C-alpha cells in the first residue's frame, strides 16, 4: 500500500518548500489569515466554554449523588461500554454505522487538534508525530475519514429516506429530530470532506511542482481530491486549499458549539455518563443520598417534585440522551399504548432544563414536574421491567427517576385510587389483598399435616427459609405454585421451613411505587423474623421477593431463586426427572424481568427444563435480556392503566409466533398475567402456561 509521505515540521520549509502557502502564512486581501485562525479558535473555545458553564448550572442546584466509588469497575465499564460501544450492536445496522463513525471520530481527534494548530503555527505537528508515526497516523486518518464520510452518507439516507420507526416523534411530544440528525451528519461529512480537500489540494500542488513524493491512498477522499485537482492551476489550488481549511475550522467550531444545544450533547457527555453509571443493579436509590433512614420521617420533602429535586447525575442523563429511541422501542408500556415512553421522559426533562436554564435571556417560570412536563399516568405506567436501561448505549437510568417522582407524588397524596386500597391493606395486614395475617399459611395446611413443611418458631428450626410472599400465600391459583415448591424441596431433601403468619409482604413494589416508609416497615419486620428464625439461607419462587431480599434488604442470609436451587439439585442428582409427559408440546421459557434482566439469572431455568428428557424447547425472539414484560407484579396487578392492549396478550402472541404451545415461567405474577392473557385472547386449549416449579413437580421421580 502506497503511503502518503509528507515531510513534517520545519524541515519542509527549509528543505523543499511547499507548493502552497499554509493558512498560517497566507493572507487575504492583505490581512494575514492567521488572524482568522486565532479569532476562530478564541471565539469558538470561548462560546463553547460559555455554553458548558450554562449547561452545568442546573447540576449545581441538584440533589447529591455519590458516583466516585469503585473506580476500577467504573474504568472497566467506560472502556467496554463507551469506548468499545458494547451496546451498539444490539441494533446491528445502526450499531455498526455508529461504531464506525465513533471510531473514526476518535482516530481523527488528533488530526482535528493538529488542523487547528496548523492555522496558527506553520507546519505544526503533535509531539511524537513528526516522523514515521505521523505518516502512519495520516494513513489511518485518511481511511477513517473516508469511512466516516461513507457511514454518514448511509446514515443520512437511512434517517432521511427510510425513516426507521423508532425515531418518530408522536405529535404530543413535539416535532421530530430528523432534521437535526441529518444536519449533524452533514457537518461531520463536511469536516471529512474539507480535510480531504485541504490535503488533496496540497498533494496535487506538490505533485504539480514536483516537490516530494506524495502518493495518497486511492479511494480515500484525500486521494480522490488529489486526483481531481491534479491539473487544476496552482492559484486556484491555493484558494481551494485556504477555503477548505477555513471551512473545516468554521464547521469544526460550529459543530463543537452545536453539541450542547441538543441531542448531540451526548458526544461530549457519553464518556462521563458511562463512567458515572449506576453500579448496583436491582435496587433503587435511597430517597435522598446523605439522608439516613431514621431522618426520612422528619425530612422536609420526599421524592422528586420539581426539576431540581433530581440528582445531578439524573440531569446529566437527560443531557446525554441521544434520542435514539432504543429504550422506547423495547418498553412494554409503550408497546401497549400506555402514556409512557422512556425516551420522552429524558427529552422532555432535558428540554425543560434548557428552558429553565437558558443559554441567553430570561428563564421560564418554574413549573411542577407533574402536570406540566410529566403526567401522572406516565409515571404510574412503568412496570420497572428495566428493558429501557438494558438497551441504552449511554447507560441512562430510568427506574430510579420514576421511583423518585412516585415518591414525590405519594408524599402529597396523589396515588391512583386503585392502589390506595392495597397499600392500606399492606400497612394493616402485611399483604395487598387485605386478607387476615393468621391465614397466611393456610395454603400449606395439608402439606403441614403431612409434615412436608413446617412453620419456623422458637422451637422449630431449619437451615433454609422458603420465603413465600403474598401472592403465593393468598391467591387461589398461585397457591398451587407454593405447594409444588414444597414438594420439590422435600423431594430434593432440603431442610426448610416457612415464616407463616410472621411473614409480611416483601414490599418490593411498595418501594418501587414510592411508599418508602411502608416499605421500610415491612422490610424491618421481615428482617427481624428472618434473623430470629436462625436460617442460614433463603429460597424463594417469587422473583420480586428474590430481588427484594437480595438487593433491597441487608443483613440477612444469602437468597437464591428456586430455579437455581433446582438446577443444582438436578446436577447433583438429588432430583430425578422422568421424561417429558407430553412429547408433542413445544415449550418456551419466558424470562421474568426480576430474575433475568435485573439479576442476570437466565440459564438456571433453561438447564432445569432441558434436564427433562425429550422436552422440545424453543426460544422467543425477545428472550433473555430482551424478554418482554408480562405486565408487572405486586401492586402493578391492582393498577388500572390507560392502554390499548395488555402486555400479557402481546407476550402470548410472541410465544405463539415462536411455535410454542406451553409457556414456562418462573414468576407468580407472570403466571397471573399470562394465564389471563390466554383466556382473553381465546387461546385456551391452544396455549398453556405452567410454572417451572410445577413442571418439575410433575416430572419429579419421588
Amino acid at each position, binding site marked *: 500500500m502506497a503511503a502518503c509521505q509528507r515531510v513534517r515540521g520545519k524541515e519542509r520549509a527549509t528543505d523543499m518548500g511547499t507548493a502552497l502557502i499554509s493558512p498560517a502564512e497566507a493572507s487575504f486581501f492583505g490581512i494575514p489569515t492567521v488572524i482568522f485562525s486565532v479569532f476562530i479558535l478564541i471565539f469558538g473555545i470561548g462560546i463553547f466554554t460559555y455554553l458548558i458553564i450554562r449547561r452545568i448550572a442546573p447540576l449545581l442546584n441538584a440533589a447529591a449523588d455519590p458516583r466516585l466509588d469503585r473506580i476500577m469497575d467504573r474504568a472497566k465499564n467506560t472502556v467496554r461500554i463507551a469506548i468499545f460501544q458494547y451496546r451498539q450492536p444490539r441494533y446491528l445496522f445502526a450499531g455498526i454505522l455508529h461504531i464506525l463513525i465513533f471510531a473514526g471520530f476518535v482516530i481523527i481527534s488528533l488530526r482535528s487538534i493538529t488542523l487547528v494548530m496548523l492555522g496558527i503555527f506553520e507546519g505544526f505537528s503533535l509531539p511524537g508525530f513528526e516522523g514515521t508515526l505521523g505518516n502512519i497516523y495520516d494513513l489511518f486518518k485518511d481511511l477513517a475519514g473516508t469511512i466516516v464520510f461513507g457511514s454518514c452518507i448511509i446514515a443520512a439516507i437511512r434517517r432521511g429516506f427510510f425513516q426507521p420507526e423508532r425515531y418518530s416523534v408522536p405529535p404530543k411530544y413535539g416535532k421530530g429530530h430528523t432534521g437535526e440528525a441529518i444536519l449533524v451528519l452533514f457537518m461531520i461529512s463536511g469536516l471529512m470532506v474539507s480535510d480531504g480537500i485541504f490535503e488533496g489540494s496540497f498533494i496535487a500542488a506538490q505533485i504539480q511542482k514536483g516537490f516530494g513524493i506524495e502518493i495518497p491512498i486511492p479511494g480515500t477522499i484525500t486521494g480522490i481530491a488529489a486526483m481531481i485537482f491534479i491539473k487544476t492551476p496552482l492559484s486556484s489550488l491555493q484558494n481551494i486549499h485556504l477555503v477548505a481549511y477555513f471551512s473545516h475550522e468554521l464547521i469544526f467550531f460550529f459543530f463543537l458549539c452545536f453539541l450542547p444545544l441538543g441531542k448531540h450533547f451526548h458526544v461530549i457527555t457519553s464518556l462521563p455518563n458511562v463512567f458515572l453509571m449506576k453500579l448496583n443493579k436491582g435496587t433503587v436509590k435511597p430517597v435522598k443520598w446523605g439522608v439516613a433512614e431514621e431522618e*426520612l*420521617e*422528619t425530612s422536609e420533602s*420526599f421524592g422528586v417534585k420539581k426539576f431540581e429535586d433530581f440528582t445531578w447525575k439524573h440531569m446529566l442523563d437527560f443531557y446525554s440522551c441521544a434520542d435514539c429511541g432504543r429504550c422506547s422501542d423495547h418498553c412494554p408500556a409503550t408497546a401497549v399504548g400506555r402514556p409512557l415512553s422512556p425516551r420522552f421522559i429524558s427529552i422532555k426533562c432535558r428540554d425543560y432544563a434548557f428552558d429553565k436554564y437558558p443559554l441567553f435571556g430570561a428563564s421560564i417560570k418554574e413549573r411542577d414536574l407533574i402536570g406540566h412536563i410529566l403526567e401522572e399516568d406516565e409515571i404510574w405506567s412503568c412496570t420497572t421491567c428495566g428493558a429501557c436501561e438494558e438497551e441504552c448505549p449511554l447507560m441512562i437510568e430510568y427506574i430510579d427517576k420514576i421511583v423518585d417522582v412516585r415518591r414525590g407524588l*405519594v*408524599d*402529597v*397524596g*396523589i*396515588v391512583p*385510587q386503585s*392502589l*390506595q*386500597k392495597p*397499600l*392500606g*391493606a399492606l*400497612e*394493616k*395486614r402485611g399483604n395487598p*389483598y*387485605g*386478607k*387476615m*395475617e*393468621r391465614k397466611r399459611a393456610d395454603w400449606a395446611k395439608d402439606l403441614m399435616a403431612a409434615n412436608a413443611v413446617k412453620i419456623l418458631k422458637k422451637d422449630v428450626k431449619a437451615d433454609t427459609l422458603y420465603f413465600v410472599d403474598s401472592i403465593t400465600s393468598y391467591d387461589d391459583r398461585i397457591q398451587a405454585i407454593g405447594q409444588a415448591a414444597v414438594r420439590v424441596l422435600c423431594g430434593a431433601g432440603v431442610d426448610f421451613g416457612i415464616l407463616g403468619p410472621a411473614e409480611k409482604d416483601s414490599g418490593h413494589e411498595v418501594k418501587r411505587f414510592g*411508599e*418508602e*416508609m*411502608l416499605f421500610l*416497615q415491612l422490610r424491618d419486620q421481615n428482617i427481624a423474623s428472618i434473623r430470629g428464625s436462625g436460617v442460614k439461607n433463603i429460597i424463594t419462587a417469587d422473583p420480586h421477593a428474590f430481588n427484594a431480599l437480595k438487593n433491597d434488604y441487608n443483613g440477612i442470609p444469602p437468597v437464591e431463586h428456586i430455579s437455581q436451587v433446582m438446577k443444582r439439585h438436578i446436577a447433583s442428582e438429588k432430583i430425578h426427572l422422568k421424561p417429558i409427559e407430553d412429547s408433542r408440546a413445544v415449550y418456551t421459557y419466558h424470562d421474568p424481568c426480576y430474575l433475568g434482566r435485573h439479576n442476570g439469572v437466565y440459564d438456571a431455568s433453561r438447564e432445569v427444563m432441558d434436564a427433562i428428557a425429550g422436552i422440545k424447547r424453543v426460544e422467543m425472539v425477545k428472550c433473555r435480556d430482551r424478554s418482554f414484560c408480562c405486565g408487572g407484579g405486586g401492586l402493578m396487578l391492582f393498577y388500572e392503566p390507560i392502554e390499548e392492549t395488555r402486555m400479557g396478550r402481546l407476550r402470548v402472541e410472541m410465544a405463539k409466533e415462536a411455535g410454542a404451545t406451553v409457556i414456562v415461567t418462573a414468576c407468580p405474577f407472570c403466571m397471573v398475567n399470562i394465564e389471563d392473557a390466554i383466556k382473553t385472547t381465546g387461546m385456551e386449549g391452544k396455549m398453556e402456561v405452567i410454572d417451572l416449579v410445577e413442571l418439575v413437580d410433575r416430572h419429579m421421580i419421588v
Partner: protein
Amino acid sequence: MEILVCVKRVPDTAENEIEVNKDGSDIERDDLVYSVNEWDNYAVEEAIQIRDKVGGSVTVVSVGGEEAEEIIRREMAMGADKGIHLSDQAFEESDGKGLVRILQAAIEKGSYDLILTGVQADDGAGQVGGMLAAMLDWPFASLVNHIEVINDRTIKVGREIAGGNQEMNEIDLPCVLSIQTGINEPRYVGIRGIRKVASVEIPVFGASDIGLSPDLVGKSGAKISRVDYFVPDLGEGAEILEGDTGEILEKLIEILKSKGGIK
C-alpha cells in the same frame, strides 16, 4: 368557610368476613383491622378541596373511646386543620339520636358554615346527617355527589337519585350534607403523613365540656337498643346445583331454556 366533618372508626370489611361472636353479643373483633368509614373519608377530601378553593378551615370530629383518636389523626394527616375528640363513658351505648345530640352540643360550641357526614357507616343506618340538621334546624341534603360554592351564603349541590340521575339543589348556609362515595378521588395518606401529625394536639371533650346532660345520651337516652347479633338461617335460599362441572352445566342450561333465558 368553616367546615366540620363527622368521622367514624369502623372495621375494614373489604376482605374480612364479619362473623358473630360466640354469645351473639357483638361481632368477632379479634382479627379485625379498623379504618375511617369510607364515606366519611370522601367527605373529608371534599371538605379539604372546598377549603383549598375558598379558604377557611376543616375540622374533623369523632365520638368514641381512645381508639377514635387514630382516625382523627389520619384525617388530619390527609389535610384537615383541626381535630376534636368527643369521649366520655356516658356516651357509650348511645343510639343514633344520642350520638347526634353529642355532636350537636359540640357543634354549638363552635361556629361552622358547613357540616359534612358520610351517607352511612358500618351499621347502614344513614341517620346522622339528617338528624343533626333537624336538631340544629339547618337545611339538609343527603347522597350528595357534587358541591359547588356559589358565595359564602349559598352552595349548589347535586344528589344521587335513581337511574343514575342527579338532582340539583341550591342550599343556604349553614347546612348539613351527607356525602356519597365517588364524589371525588380521596388523596392517599402515607405513613410519613401520619407520622408528621403524630404529635399534634387533639382536644378531648367529655359531656360536661360540651354542656350535655348525660341522661340525654348513653343507654338511658337511647330509644333503639341492640339485643344481639345473629346470622339468619339461609332458609330456602337458592337451590345449589351439585355434581361435576359437566353435570352442572347441563342442568343449568336445561333450566335456562325452560325459563326462556336462551334466545
